């Protein structure tokens, strides 16, 4: 009989015991914890102030191996993969031939001819389609490799307590092999929160050992299991977008206007138009670079006083959402809609209502005054907001 149940991760034995509100979320065919507590505050602040332990096993993972492994990723993604050194990690998007984003993730060069690619959605077919005539093997290891995201300013100290080798020298977007209580792991200095952080990759069988080791060592450093809802707030502060929330994959968009290019999502820095040879979408991206983008993803900072005035009209103080809102909110200039916010959240750290917004040219220029839709007592209103540079928050220790 076909099993239609969602899978649980190798950390489920621990996470399920800790998940007080039974707040479970679906992620790529897995159950993961939405939040471990009824409110998100403690989990959110663990990311920003101490050490957050997040189960990110459902990330799609592929091992790409062989003589042409670098050539395949060089062709598929927008980065110059041939330039990557062993031990380097690169964030990248990848596009269709029209230069529209299919997905995004990280490339880790594990060995000279071995890479790990992470993705939000299944990409095996796309990778295979691009590997015609190449000497390369592509293996999906999503269900074999467990992953923890360990985020927050105390994480380095905790890792140094449990790792065989110190992680002090591990630079931003680099990886190392290490051992945690005798268990072989790969640690990359990466994350989805915009804070100091690491991602730890291990065999499924070792997942609980690693979890227990970190929880034990981290107890003096405020280690906190964190669900994906708090991570969602942090990633908006960090200006990081999410597939199927902030953009639609070109591979399953219904209409052209649902698609986005890397330039439109602010990924200009990842598009290596100067790299040699063909890569998928090159011509379209070159054209867009020459002609400029019709849209841009930017940050919106909603004006608190303006919002206060709107709520005041009905006799209420401003109401703020308790978690990130994954809903499309129209953005206006005058009476004309010039874009939409795809994720908005209250930033507990910045004390600002912020949003990731997609605005049309020329309204995406920094400093532009716009208005974003809010709902006040069941009525649509528009709160004044300003276009700001992303990220909203970037602590100095993130890359140090």
């Amino acid at each position, binding site marked *: 009989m076909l099993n239609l149940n969602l899978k649980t991760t190798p950390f489920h034995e621990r996470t399920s015991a800790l998940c007080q509100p039974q707040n479970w979320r679906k992620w790529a065919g897995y159950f993961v914890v939405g939040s471990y507590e009824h409110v998100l505050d403690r989990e959110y602040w663990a990311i920003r102030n101490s050490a957050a332990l997040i189960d990110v096993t459902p990330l799609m993972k592929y091992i790409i191996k062989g003589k042409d492994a670098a*050539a395949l990723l060089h*062709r598929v993604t927008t980065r110059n993969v041939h330039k990557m050194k062993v031990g380097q990690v690169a964030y990248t998007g990848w596009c*269709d*031939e029209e230069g529209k984003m299919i997905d995004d993730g990280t490339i880790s060069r594990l060995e000279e001819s071995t890479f790990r690619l992470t993705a939000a959605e299944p990409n095996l077919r*796309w990778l295979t*389609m*691009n590997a*015609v*005539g*190449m000497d390369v093997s592509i293996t999906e290891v999503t269900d074999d490799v467990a992953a923890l995201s360990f985020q927050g300013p105390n994480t380095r100290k905790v890792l140094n307590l449990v790792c065989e080798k110190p992680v002090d020298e591990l630079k931003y977007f680099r990886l190392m092999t290490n051992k945690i209580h005798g268990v072989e792991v790969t640690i990359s200095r990466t994350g989805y929160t915009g804070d100091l952080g690491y991602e730890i990759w291990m065999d499924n069988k070792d997942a609980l050992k690693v979890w227990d080791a970190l929880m034990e060592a981290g107890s003096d450093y405020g280690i906190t299991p964190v669900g994906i809802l708090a991570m969602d707030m942090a990633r908006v502060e960090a200006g990081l977008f999410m597939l199927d929330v902030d953009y639609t994959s070109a591979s399953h968009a219904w209409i052209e206007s649902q698609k986005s290019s890397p330039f439109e999502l602010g990924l200009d820095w990842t598009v290596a138009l100067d790299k040699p*040879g*063909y890569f*998928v979408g*090159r*011509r379209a991206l070159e054209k867009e670079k020459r002609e400029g983008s019709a849209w841009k993803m930017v940050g919106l900072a909603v004006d608190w006083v303006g919002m206060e005035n709107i709520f005041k009209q009905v006799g209420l103080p401003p109401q703020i959402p308790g978690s990130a809102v994954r809903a499309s909110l129209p953005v206006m200039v005058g009476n004309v809609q010039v874009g939409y916010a795809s994720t908005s959240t209250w930033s507990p750290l910045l004390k600002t209502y912020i949003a990731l917004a997609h605005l049309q040219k020329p309204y995406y220029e920094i400093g532009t005054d716009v208005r974003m839709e809010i709902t006040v007592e069941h009525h649509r209103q528009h709160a004044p907001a300003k276009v700001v540079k992303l990220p909203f928050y970037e602590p100095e220790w993130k890359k140090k």
Partner: protein
Amino acid sequence: MATHYDNYHHGAGHSNGFLLLAYLPTKQKFLGLRTRFHHRQFRKIQIFGDNDSIDFPTICERDSSCSRHYFKDLKLRTHTGLTVDSCSENHSSPVQTDGNHLTLDAESIKRISEKDAACFPEFVRFMNKCASILDTAYATIMPRLPMNFGIKEGFGLMELGLELKLAGRKDMLNFIRALPMTAQELVEEYFESEIVKAAIASLGIHGFTLGPMGAGTGYTLIHNWMNRGGLAHVNVGKAGEITQALANAIKASGGEIRTEAEVASIKVESQIAKGVVLANGEEILANQILSSADPKHTFLKLVGAQDLPPEFVWHTQSIKMRGSVAKIHLQTNGSHGIPEGTLVVAPSIKYLEKAYDATKYGEISEKPYLEVTTSGNAVSIHFQFAPYNLKLGTWNVEREKVEKLAIDTLAEYFPNLKSSIVNRKSITPQDLESIYGLTEGDLNHGQLMLDQFLFMRPIPGWSNHKTPIDNLYLCGSGVHGGGGVSGVSGRNVVRVL
């Protein structure tokens, strides 16, 4: 130092390739290369060696299916004095074991069935009308659907629409209806006798890996009717003669032809074709590269998947080739007893369908469909079905089996054949690939099926001869206008250029 040309044409086949060269402006410097042919196909073909040459091209039929447009356009008569027979004079002859062979004309059919004889002229009229519409469709450069198309493509489509309208409502609808029909259904609307139905339906499977009960063989029947100008080939001279005429026309325009110069790869830089590299390492640069090699060969072998968009590669990989034709050439002492001209071994529709059934399972037809062309001592047999991909065995071993099956089958009708054979040579689907560069031995550079014609040939979105590589164009049978060697795609690509 590499030589530089305005136009370079790779895989210059006798019709599509040479025709396009002949159409090129005389002010341009252009070069045609025959890449894989070791035979001098545009002269007398020497199948059995210098002392025993017979007057046959190796893989094409005796008479060419070259479109009649080009005789006018290119003034080929001035180069060779070739002439075109009228369609109504072409006959093929289904053979019968009792020796009471039939010629497919109304008079002869009357011996079998008065009703069929009465229907035959109307069938010929309808098929000629269908062929005329299809001819116009092939001469129309297709838009790159689903992309938007402009006025240029729009005009072409309007002309096609007009041709359909001029056909009259009844014929227009019947034409559209006939395309997805089976050849069996189409012929059964006109004829009752099995031998007539099968002989005509066999034209719908000739050269294709399809049975007469397969959807879309109505279309392939019309296609072959159009290319031949009827049931048998229009006599416009032998294939070698046409090629010679075209070669003369090319040379007269200042073109250059090189033979036995195998292309190893097409040189591409930043998705722009710059030239070709020959197997001997020689580099030839050109402003435009025109390939009449099949699309799979052109893109996957000569260009390479690494320089092409993934979906384009995927579609190219998915082109259905499926060659299943073998050729058996016999040199005889002349006592074979087979009449001159074209005859077919196609006793019934079921016989043809069963012959096709074998190929679905990777087997050679034990009771094959044959089309036999005889000229003096020479007998050339077109054998279906002999699948490129054999379930068991290899073509090195199975070659003899095909030869034996062909000879045994034909000898049932002409008992003197076996004792008359002096020499024989066969060309298997494997040979068609290894010697002639035809992927999977597909004579049509891609099967003619309803999902591989018009704007879907060679692949959806790329039917107008252009490719994802700038300055590289397709002009062979594998693009719209093909299959076969009518030259339409060669003529069309010049208009695109």
